[in-house]
């Protein structure tokens, strides 16, 4: 046991073994479930790079070791709620039930952002995420395929008490993995989605909630899986942590 911990400690000292991989995505005009103008305008997305894998428990552990202000016993409550990293055995220990290469979850938006900054990156915007997640192994935009939509939706029926799979699912056409089917993911502009409590009611109660054009109306009703992501993100506060919510980072080229 002693030998093992020395070995593990040695590995920690050696630092992150491999720098995270980022895949280039070309950007372009993209028809999002959230029209850019709140009505019908497509999103304009500049070329960017997306982290091919979700941030794992091991990577996040290395981050809190290097930046102790993000340990769960040191982080100010304004940046992360009480359940932040609460599934780990200790503030700097994963424990036996938490696998190093499972995606890290129960992280707040502030913590996710700080992690991305530590690898000279940022969180992806919602449009970047949705655009990347529209791809499958063959196509850059598989959303028109009912079978693809069905397969994405199937994840939402997975019981929440089954352990999270590890990262490293099949790569999509860009080489990015696990965008669908593993966890919810933070985006940089989660507080820009402005979805009303009931977006069928455009001229009703939400009119005063948001100054300007009011709540956004969501498009592409057949794309439930993506709409659920938007609803989930727009219901969160930046300090919230969620059992099944992780993140990955992005970079502008």
């Amino acid at each position, binding site marked *: 046991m002693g030998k093992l911990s020395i070995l593990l400690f040695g590995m920690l000292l050696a630092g992150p073994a491999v720098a995270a991989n980022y895949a280039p995505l070309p950007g372009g005009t993209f028809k999002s479930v959230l029209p850019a103008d709140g009505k019908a305008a497509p999103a304009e997305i500049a070329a960017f790079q997306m982290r091919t894998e979700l941030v794992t428990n091991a990577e996040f552990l290395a981050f809190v070791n290097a930046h102790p202000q993000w340990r769960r016993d040191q982080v100010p409550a304004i940046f992360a709620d009480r359940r932040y990293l609460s599934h780990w055995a200790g503030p700097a220990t994963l424990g036996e039930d938490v696998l190093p290469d499972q995606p890290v979850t129960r992280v707040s938006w502030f913590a996710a952002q700080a992690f991305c900054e530590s690898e000279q990156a940022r969180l992806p915007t919602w449009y970047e995420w949705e655009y990347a997640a529209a791809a499958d192994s063959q196509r850059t935009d598989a959303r028109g395929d009912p079978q693809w939509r069905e397969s994405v939706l199937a994840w939402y029926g997975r019981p929440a008490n089954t352990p999270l799979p590890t990262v490293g699912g099949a790569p999509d056409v860009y080489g990015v993995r696990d965008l669908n089917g593993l966890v919810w993911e933070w985006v940089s*502009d989660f507080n*820009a989605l*402005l979805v009303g409590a009931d977006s069928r009611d455009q001229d009703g109660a939400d009119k005063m909630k948001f*100054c300007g054009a009011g709540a956004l109306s969501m498009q592409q009703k057949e794309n439930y899986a993506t709409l659920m992501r938007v609803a989930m993100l727009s219901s969160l506060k930046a300090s919230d942590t969620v059992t099944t919510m992780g993140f990955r980072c992005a970079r502008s080229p």
Partner: protein
Amino acid sequence: MKRLMIGMFFLLLVGQLFAAAPLPGDSVYQFDAKLTDQSGQTWPWSSRQGRVQLVTMFYTSCTMVCPMIVDTMKLTEKAVDEPARDHLDLLMVSFDPERDTVAALHDYAAKRKLTSPHWTLARTEPAEVRQLAALLGLQYRELPNGDFNHSSELILLDAEGRILARTNIIGRIDPAFVEEVRKALGAS
């Protein structure tokens, strides 16, 4: 043992008097940002601590519901009687640092008769706007035409930066919110 305890207690008291007490974990002033006000002064966000604040976010070129946010700030301020009113600060931070330059903020303050030192209109660096909004629990979205959609809320901060209350009632007074402001100022 007892003497030790008394000694430590005394030390604690002295510490409280001479060192600035550490910020509470749920204080918004834990966030590190710099703001620049309508007179061109730049200061750390955390320098707002020490006074009760009414905070909101806005942008000056907004022509829709937003001017009513200023009206509601004014109504809420007036609903607090002197001398307590004198201890209330009002801060409006722009969603739109591109267009809301110091000059734009200065003009807006003059036009709406928002006088210093009680009123502060401020801008921050673009990268910090979204973080500040997230910290305060406000949502906003820039539209392709340069307008912003945003939540309209007033937020009450205590002297240490804890969020005591918020209201999304705009255009008239929210009596429950005003009561919270009075309480925060020790006026009720």
